[in-house]
């Protein structure tokens, strides 16, 4: 079983590295998850992660790339809500990677 250690706590991960228990998420957990992906979270990343958590709270599902882009454009404007910006931030796989770092389930309709 994969896991992370954050501030002395053991955080279980599934085989793809997503949190097993969504309630385990915290900002330090996000930092640790990002570190595993060789990523350092900037303010730009955090803005998207917070938005993604709001998306999940509202719709109870993780968005695929296209709806993610649409939602970011809707909330933060088209200069943030475009595939180039999101691909650069999240290594070309924004829906999958951002969902992982935001502590959401893996997007099911992301083929």
């Amino acid at each position, binding site marked *: 079983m994969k896991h992370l250690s954050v501030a002395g706590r053991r955080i279980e991960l599934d085989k793809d590295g997503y949190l097993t228990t969504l309630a385990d998420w915290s900002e330090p957990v996000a930092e640790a998850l990002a570190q595993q992906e060789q990523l350092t979270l900037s303010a730009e990343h955090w803005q998207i992660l917070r938005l993604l958590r709001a998306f999940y709270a509202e719709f109870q599902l993780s968005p695929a790339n296209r709806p993610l882009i649409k939602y970011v454009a809707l909330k933060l404007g088209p200069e943030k809500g475009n595939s180039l910006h999101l691909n650069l931030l999240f290594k070309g796989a924004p829906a999958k990677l951002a969902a992982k770092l935001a502590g959401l389930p893996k997007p*099911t309709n992301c083929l």
Partner: protein
Amino acid sequence: MSKSLLIINRQSPWSGPSAREALDIALAGGAFDLPLGMLFLDDGVFQLAPAQQPSALQQKDLGANLQALPLFGVESLYASARSLQERGLEQQTLTLAAEVLEDAALIALIDRYDQVITL
């Protein structure tokens, strides 16, 4: 040009996997930018009823999921006027902005789509 698909969604959210499967088809198709429509028919209109509490049955919140359809590019949403009326549901209380259509308009709607599937 992709073929258009109308998904006819006619089961209650609580009767089994059909309602969720219909939604999954819509979300997957929407992610590929297919021109999609969804029609709520028969007990399917109960998916649009307000104030449902899926947590009481330890189920996922289908109603919340349905709200994401427009973000997934599924903006053509319809409900059968007859099904609503038979079940005592009123258009203004529905949780999605679906266009309410009489049977004659539904026949024309089905005719217009390239492909149709009923769950």
